[in-house]
């Protein structure tokens, strides 16, 4: 459907379109069964960043307060890309892994299912 409007047309580009990121991308990650962290996290990163570097240097420090964080082996995690099963190559770049602007990644860490038996 479209907006009911007065005048000739009602058409605008997205405020968050990729061209406004100067070659970087804005994408999102959620660690399943760890709801201590209330929301999926938002990132801006260059497309040629190696995925492993991103995970070790940006993502892991963000989750430092969780007792599971130090034990996570990203290699063994089960991944989803836009809510569908997915297998990344951690030694390739974001771009080579097909990760683009506004993509949504989730991972589940086997054996580390959060706290209190309820995925906290």
């Amino acid at each position, binding site marked *: *459907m*479209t*907006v*009911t*409007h*007065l005048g000739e047309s*009602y*058409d*605008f*580009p*997205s*405020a*968050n*379109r*990729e061209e*406004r*990121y100067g070659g970087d991308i*804005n994408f*999102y990650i*959620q660690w*399943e*069964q760890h*709801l*201590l*962290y*209330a*929301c*999926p*996290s*938002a*990132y*801006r990163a260059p497309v040629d960043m190696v995925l492993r570097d991103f995970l070790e240097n940006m993502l892991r420090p*963000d989750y430092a*307060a969780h007792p599971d964080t130090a034990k996570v082996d990203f290699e063994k995690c089960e991944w989803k890309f*836009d*809510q569908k099963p997915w297998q990344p190559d951690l030694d390739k770049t974001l771009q080579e892994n097909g990760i683009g*602007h*506004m*993509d*949504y990644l*989730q991972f589940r860490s086997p054996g580390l299912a959060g*706290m*209190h*038996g*309820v*995925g*906290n």
Partner: protein
Amino acid sequence: MAKARKLGLKERYALLTRGLDWETTYQPMDKVFPYDTYEGIKIVDWDKWEDPFRLTMDAYWKYQSEKERKLYAILDAFQQNNGHLNISDARYMSAVKIWLQGITPLEYAAHRGFAHAGRSFRGAGARVACQMQSIDELRHAQTQLHAFSHYNKYFSGMHNFAHMRDRAWYLSIPKSFFEDAMSAGPFEFVTSISFAFEYVLTNLLFMPFVSGAAFNGDMATTTFGFSAQSDESRHMTLGLEVVKFMLEQHEDNVPIVQAWLDKWFWRGYRLLGLVGTMMDYMLPKKVMSWKEAWEMYWEENGIALFNDLARYGIRLPKHHEVATKEKGRLTHELWATLYQYGNALGLHTWVPEDEELDWFSEKYGEQFDTMYKPRLLYFRELEEKGERFYNNRLPMVCQVCQIPIFYTEPDDPQSQCVRIVESKDTKHHCCSDGCADIFNREPEKYVQALIPPQQVYRGEADGARDIFEYAKYLHLESGVDTGEYRNSPDHKNWQAWHAATPDNSDEAA
């Protein structure tokens, strides 16, 4: 000379509110009033508009000025008697702060919105009703600012609400709600604000805040609440009147109104999560739980109201059952969110005291005890170790309601709920099927939304690169206006003001 006959109320009302309009001749009527037709609402006879209050402008000014005199007399007394010392606890101020930062600007937005709607309707009855509500809303914004101004002298975080309102991530929630309504046509505006918000959901907004204020010794807020109450009942009646008027005028209006009710019920419900969290967490002395309020005001009264509208062909708003499924978790999930993003929040957060946790157990039962209580206790444990929990990574935010996506799946409270929607140039994320439906109905509108974390990453928040620089951009002082309540200046001042004898610690300095 014969004395002129005194007019009856009905005659007087008719003379003062009708026949004020005329058919334009220099320009066609449709050009003078372009907004009241383009939404597709068909009005056959504007004179069928009924004003149940039969209020004329002269009577309106008289009533309002009487209320004003009483209100300001009490506010004066409150200030002269250091009324801020009588609140239940300084934690209560978080409720006042979120009202000042988030809701008072909505009163002003409503003033603008009703002024615009009043200009847009060609029926004189509707115009008069909108004019009065527009003035009411301006008065509410002013009386709230005056009532709160005393607190601003003693508590932090209240110094720059207008600047914050246009920038802060958690204030874009109420701001975007109203701007969505104001940028729609006049019939959608009155359906959204007068009906969905004021009629269906206001009991969940105004009642808990004003009775919560009374319960927690806040005389200033209680007084403006009472002063606004008769206006609010007029607004509620206008809301019901406008919906019935549209539905009775033409059957083609029914599907349009239904779509608006679906949209605005959901947007209103999402916004009220902030109020629910205020009721459950920010009031040191609790009035009722969000769950109880939802059951009373929606599951009983709200659903009964929609059943009354069934004779016009109106059904219950879409996704209302999801809102009901969320009643046991909403405020706990949102408080955990405010707590962890506290470094960019202009009010304090904390882990509730033990007796409050017991109150939650009583009101929310097993779901609280198994899921949310252990989380709160873990926050407490970290805090006691000197490692108060903050999440400093910016969150994913819903493209429609602009709330950070903390929600969980309706049927699985342990798994995050995200909906991916697409426009022609990029993807977007929504918090629910309700918001995804709203997006998909008018994608060109919502793609324009200024989503705060995205704004930061694009370098459009004065170049802020992290949550601390972002707080500065909001004019918030870290550790004073933001974050943990314990040992904040508000907390220390409160203790100093209430210390029976001066203590020897450096806090008293």
